[in-house]
């Protein structure tokens, strides 16, 4: 029974993540438009975009190889697999045993690498620019990410995300300076990983400043739909992860009491929308930075991660 319930929760989680991902992008987009004094598209616009893209026949560059056609599927599969590892409304899902934080980082790298390779497949300048910049940003983001994982492992004793979230929810860890530092570092990483302002501008039309958009320039039709849905899923994944770590309350148990799931789903939705609005406000209040300033931005995240770990060493006398 418990196993079946967990499986049901996992399927529900997959459906929720896939279904809600475009909505979150839409909400962020329309809140940003409102903040800038525009009416902006309705929050449901991304769904219409996706439906239109899936219906259209893709046009592919003449010298594109099989890799170009396979990459959107590979990237989206990696993102979906990663999304299955981050609990939204309930812990203890069927995938809980797989949900290692380093594996999560690996899956995100897999998604990024597939798109970066596809960007270079046609041999255009913009694809190369995007791939080169995206991998450079990842180089600076990875140390910060590992230090964040390091902090969790010191606190909980494992890098399993489900175990970390359970420990956070049960409140056994208490309030800690390190956790606050880690959440700020994670937010900076989320901004960089999702290509939001100030690192990259998801709404840009100026080719020279593009990073993520530049890599998808040659895509159209259902391939572009997969890439866009993947990007939306990545945003939702990061927001869910930060929400679960920052506000760990209300997460249900997948193995029992489906009635409590509803509470979990509602709380997850509230957290996600709240963080989405925070992101929109942050994006509207800051200017995009030069590409070569991004390492400094991510360097702050690395320093925060280091501080978090060192605080733990000093405060706990950890041994």
């Amino acid at each position, binding site marked *: 029974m418990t196993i079946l319930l967990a499986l049901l929760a996992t399927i529900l989680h997959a459906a929720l993540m896939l279904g809600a991902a475009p909505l979150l992008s839409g909400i962020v987009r329309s809140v940003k438009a409102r903040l800038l004094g525009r009416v902006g598209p309705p929050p449901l616009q991304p769904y219409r975009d996706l439906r239109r893209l899936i219906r259209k026949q893709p046009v592919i560059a003449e*010298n594109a190889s099989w890799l170009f056609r396979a990459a959107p599927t590979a990237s989206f599969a990696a993102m979906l697999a990663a999304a299955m590892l981050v609990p939204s409304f309930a812990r203890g899902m069927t995938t809980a045993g797989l949900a290692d934080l380093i594996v999560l980082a690996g899956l995100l790298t897999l998604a990024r690498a597939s798109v970066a390779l596809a960007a270079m497949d*046609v041999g255009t300048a913009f694809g190369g620019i995007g791939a080169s910049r995206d991998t450079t940003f990842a180089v600076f983001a990875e140390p910060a*990410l590992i230090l964040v994982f390091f902090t969790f492992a010191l606190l909980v004793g494992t890098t399993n995300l489900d175990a970390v979230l359970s420990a956070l929810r049960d409140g056994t860890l208490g309030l800690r300076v390190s956790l606050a530092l880690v959440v700020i570092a994670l937010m900076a990483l989320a901004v960089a990983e999702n290509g939001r302002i100030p690192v990259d501008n998801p709404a840009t039309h100026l080719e020279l400043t593009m990073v993520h958009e530049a890599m998808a320039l040659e895509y159209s039709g259902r391939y572009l739909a997969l890439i866009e849905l993947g990007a939306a899923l990545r945003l939702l994944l990061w927001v869910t992860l930060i929400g679960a770590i920052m506000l760990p309350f209300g997460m249900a148990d997948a193995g029992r009491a489906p009635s409590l799931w509803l509470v979990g789903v509602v709380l997850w939705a509230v957290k996600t929308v709240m963080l989405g609005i925070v992101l929109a406000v942050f994006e509207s209040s800051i200017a995009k930075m030069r590409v070569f300033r991004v390492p400094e931005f991510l360097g702050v995240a690395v320093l925060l991660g280091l501080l978090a770990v060192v605080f733990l060493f000093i405060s706990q006398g950890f041994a």
Partner: protein
Amino acid sequence: MTGFALPALASLSAVLLLLGLAPDRRAGLIATGGLCGAAGLLTLAYLLAGAPAATLPLPVGLPGSGMTFGIDGLSAWFLLLVFWLGAAASVAALDQDSGKTAPAFPLFIAGMALTLLAADGFALVFGFELMSVASFVLVLTQAEDAAARAAALLYLGMAVLGAACLVPAFALLGGGSFAAMRAHPPDGWRAAAVLALVLIGAGSKAGFAPLHVWLPPAHATAPSHVSALMSGAMTKVGLYVVIRFLLDLCGPAQPLWWAIPLLAVGAGGAVLGALRANMEVDLKLVLACSTVENLGLMAIGLGVALAARATDLTALAALGLTGTLLHAMAHGTFKGLLFLGAGAVQHHAGTRSLARLGGLIHRMPVTTAAMLAGAAGLAALPPTGGFAGEWTLFQAIIAAPHVGGLGFQLVTCVVAALMALAAALAAAAAIRLIGIGFLGRPRSPRAAAATEPGAPMRSALIGLAGVTGIIGLFPGTVLALADPALRALLPGRGIAARSLLLLAPQPDAPGYVAVGIAALLGLAAGAIILAMRGRVMAGHATSPAWDCGFGAPPPWLPFGDPATQYGAASFAQPLRRTLAGALLAARQTLDMPPPGDTRPALYSETDADPADAGLFQPGARMREAASGFVDRMQFLTIRRTLVVMFSVLVLFLAAVAVLQQT
């Protein structure tokens, strides 16, 4: 069965020694491959049978004491890699012009096998030097090239340094057989001296920083099937010697600070190697630099194992060592694959400069697919073997603060951050390698006319890719073969039991389930394909690349305007500006003539490995100065010669007098 393994392996190695004399080179290669395959299967059977340790004294060797050979779990684990890669490299070599390498190639494999089978100091140094000399001859294959001669000379110097360090290291341990050395482990300054000598002597062979400078040019210059063995197997033999000394021969009780040099060397080498891999333009130099990075990661695992052993945390020591062994196997396999693929590219696309390649995915589909599998391991993407190895190493460093002491804990968190930096840099290098070399448009007519290599090379590539996949999907099963090694090195203290499908840092903890992740990925991909099938508009239309409206190229540029495609240097430019300026002293100068001047604009960039500038160049200068001094001493006038001899005599007598008084 198992008692029979050691003599059989020893005699197979001896036959390999003789194979260099084979008159027909092709038959020699086939025999080498067959022998390696048989020996590999034998080693596998030995490991499956539980790998009981055995020794075999031979009457030949040093007068009076002979030589002792032996085998245990640790040496068998590395033998498996050497023989398996040796077989693949021999098969691949059939496809290429390998006439010049025929005599030394089996000798090289035999040298590695003898090093691994050695059970006394003499046999080990003998095998080690045989391996060094044979590979020196192989590096010198293209002797008409001045750069190859320089690389080979530097390599020979490092090989001599290796012997000069390993012989005194054995002397400090008391000499004789390994069993005798184990009975009297060193302590105090003696132990510290052994550590330093081993890190210099065997560590330089393994490519540990800062003695890694010889490695990229030597591995890039050798013929590709040799580079595959040098990078995939020989560096691991160096690693084996380090493990054998530090974890076995030096006894169980060594202080905690032993871990620090290994952690520092590992983290430094990992970052430097990975960064250089992003800067190099030669395909094989990129791969060789990433070897330095991966060996750095393995050194970190070894450092964690040493620290944990010093504080009696056996589970953590096992975790660190497991990471090192698993990554050694995974890296050996995918790096061998990548080097063989690079050889195929060199032969069939005419160059290994990334600046002249491109678009090979259309002309060499099998090679490109195999290179993709190898590069995925290089980038440590799940679910490849490279990811399994790095995952275990990350778990080891993350658990390392349990060793205690604030100073050590600070070291571990910095090392973890540097490891992550190196891993991300390696991923960038892998994307650059594939994206520039194999995707996009051809950058030279020769690359546009590339052809797929012959059947032997293709089968070697596919076979190695298959093994990489097996290590990636079933790391726990593969690690079951390393259990004898762990039991031999960390005796009787409860090694964490691993399930065959799972890698876990502790016995009861959730860990990394490679098959589960692969299944999840497969399910997701299958769902996408199903969802996309049956849409109104299946298939796709083709057109010239959109490229923001750049327009199709004119007919006299069949592969488009070369200047509009990102190249190897442009891809690396952001990293060069942000990281390499500080770490590799990368400088760029732009000479832009004023308008009206007809001079061409010149852009040049330089970078230097800090180990080269800080260690090797001063060393070379000191050697020059010393040889100049000796030159002058040789041609003194008779009066001065007499003065020198007389003063030396007086000094000597004075020293004797002083020493006798005290």
